[in-house]
């Protein structure tokens, strides 16, 4: 196997303007166009979960990100928004389209998270939901008669809302992110960041980053999944900025002759998309404009695969138990709710 380029055989490789014009042009790079066509035809899927106490502006942020009423609250009009007694998981899908690119966006809301007096194990239902999506995909994948395109309901990204206390992470935050970062891409954001001054914000961010490091929590983009030096460079810059301090708004105001998304207060108007005011634009660029494919790839080729390995090994361990062989590789901590998964059978 040796690498041959067009230059080896024809000194000047020039792009053809049409078939048969340039005799050195084979046309291999036309596959890019073919892939693009196929992608446009199929459309894309994206599943985002938002987690955080009520009142942190989760719904508004989603609406701001996708410039549309995509949040659950916008869809389900409830007379009174009561804080639920238990954590609920609510999933809403939308078909959105931009310049011919169609996307099925699913926003998964988790009302009730962190709102109880006793929040022990509040991460459990969320973990279960995420694992259930992996399970559903796995079931489809191991069918004999498989669908041409397996519907992807796996959670690609979980945006975790940190309340703007300005001090440090709360035990609930640490607990949640520690557990969930192992099964899903977590993007932490500082919610309602307009209550922090720039200095307070920087201090808070540094503190948070330290705590994440100290607890071994790997948020997106995870260092170990950097593919090459270029990737690492880009991702390092992002890692130095996390968590993004965001402000959400779906209201437009007139600022300097332009209509901008913002929050109007007595002391000024906060422009959501102005990076001098808040880091919403960075979050949007990361999630949507540059790293969306990467987020999905990490979900499918790493998180899902890890789930699959655990799941398939679990079958063997159950069999091993029946055969009286000792199992030494199941840690009680890592053992997810297999009872829930087994109940599927």
């Amino acid at each position, binding site marked *: 196997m040796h690498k041959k380029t067009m230059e080896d055989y024809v000194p000047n*490789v020039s792009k053809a303007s049409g078939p048969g014009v340039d005799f050195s042009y084979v046309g291999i*790079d036309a596959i*890019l166009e073919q892939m693009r066509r196929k992608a446009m035809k199929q459309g894309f899927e994206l599943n985002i979960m938002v987690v955080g106490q009520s009142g942190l502006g989760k719904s508004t942020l989603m609406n701001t990100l996708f410039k549309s009423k995509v949040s659950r609250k916008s869809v389900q009009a409830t007379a009174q928004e009561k804080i639920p007694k238990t954590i609920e998981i609510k999933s809403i*899908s939308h078909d959105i389209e931009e310049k011919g690119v169609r996307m099925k966006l699913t926003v998964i809301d988790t009302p009730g998270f962190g709102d109880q007096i006793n929040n022990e194990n509040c991460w459990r239902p969320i973990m279960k939901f995420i694992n259930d999506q992996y399970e559903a995909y796995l079931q489809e994948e191991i069918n004999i008669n498989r669908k041409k395109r397996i519907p992807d309901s796996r959670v690609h990204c979980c945006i975790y809302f940190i309340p703007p206390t300005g001090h440090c992470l709360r035990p609930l935050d640490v607990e949640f992110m520690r557990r969930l970062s192992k099964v899903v891409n977590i993007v932490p954001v500082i919610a309602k960041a307009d209550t922090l001054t720039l200095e307070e914000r920087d201090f808070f961010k540094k503190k948070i980053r330290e705590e994440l490091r100290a607890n071994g929590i790997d948020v997106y983009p995870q260092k170990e999944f950097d593919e090459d030096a270029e990737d690492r460079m880009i991702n390092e810059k992002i890692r130095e900025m996390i968590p993004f301090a965001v402000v959400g708004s779906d209201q437009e105001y007139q600022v300097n002759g332009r209509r901008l998304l913002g929050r109007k207060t007595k002391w000024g108007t906060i422009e959501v998309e102005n990076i001098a005011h808040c880091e919403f634009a960075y979050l949007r660029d990361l999630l*949507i404009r540059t790293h969306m494919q990467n987020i999905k790839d990490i979900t499918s080729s790493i998180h899902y695969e890890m789930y699959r390995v655990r799941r398939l090994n679990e079958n063997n361990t159950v069999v091993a138990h029946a055969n009286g062989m000792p199992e030494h590789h199941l840690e009680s901590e890592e053992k997810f709710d297999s009872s829930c998964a087994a109940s599927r059978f």
Partner: protein
Amino acid sequence: STLWFVAGEGARAVPLAGHVGFDSMPDQLVNKSVNHGFCFNILCVGETGLGKSTLMDTLFNTKFEGEPTQHNQPGVTLKSNTYELQESNVRLKLTVVNTVGFGDQINKEDSYKSIVEFIDAQFEAYLQEELKIKRTLHSYHDTRIHACLYFIAPTGHSLKSLDLVTMKKLDSKVNIIPIVAKSDAISKSELAKFKIKITSELVSNGVQIYQFPTDDESVAEINSTMNSHLPFAVVGSTEEVKIGNKMVKARQYPWGTVQVENENHCDFVKLREMLIRVNMEDLREQTHTRHYELYRRCKLEEMGFKDTDPDSKPFSLQETYEAKRNEFMGELQKKEEEMRQMFVQRVKEKEAELKEAEKELHEKFDRLKKLHQDEKKKVEDKRKSLDDELNMFKQKKTAAELLQNQAQQAGGSTTLKRDKERKK
């Protein structure tokens, strides 16, 4: 307890109030693929000498290695070579598989078998990877055949029965693109009739060749036009000839020059257009979603897996695996037992052999010993008799000497004479 709420199967369409930015998704996807590189695998089936290697060289504008194969192969083997090509920022791992010795045997009944086995082996390798517990599908080197170029000899009459049989066996396993090889051997009018004959024979025998897809409106028109030109009549050449003021790929004859890239001369450009520039991705997709799925389905069903049992209850995968596993363990044990028995048996046999040999050696030794003893005895006896003779001779000699002395002392020479005369 948790509550789920999903807003129906058909998600609602929502208008956007501004530019969000996910229109960059196709670019993101393409960039990822460019970083990973692409794989494309072509299988060339056809008799020796139909210009398969030359056509590959011409298609990809490069000289792949290999000498022309001999015609005396005992069976059909498949030779596969992988090359890394690059054009602008696209890296392609191209694998070209050639059928060596196809059509050369006197009895061609089994010719198609090695081809089918090869294609199945690639599917099997992928399936094995997919079924692994720890798998790396995204970095797996896909060796499944994406396109099969079937080279038809330019007889001008009809398809050979070998061609029909082979294509029929392959059409459910691979995308077949039939081409008429060395088509400069046929005149234009004969070619048209030949193509029609081939197409009708394929249809009447139910051979499913690859149809260029017509569901995407941007390529539907060109694809459907090209579908009507199948099979493509091609000519391959890597030699260049000066026509006008340009160097073109051509084959030069005393009566004229056949230009490879001249659409009036042959369909090479059409083939390149369809195979590479328009439908490469579709060929890969069809291989994965249709041919591979079919193989996988058949294989899994063969192995005894089912999706649902007769009562429409989903089979527990766990149970099936367990059953299969026990079956497998049972077989394994049985095999082990068999092997052990065989081993013990062999050892016994060998032991008996060795004992036999030992016995023989002993016998031989005893025989030799006896022989030796006999010989020794003989020699001893001989020696003894010789000794006896010697003694007797000595005695006689002594006696004679004594007599001589006595005679000399007693009388004169007369006695001696008398003795002498007497002795005479």
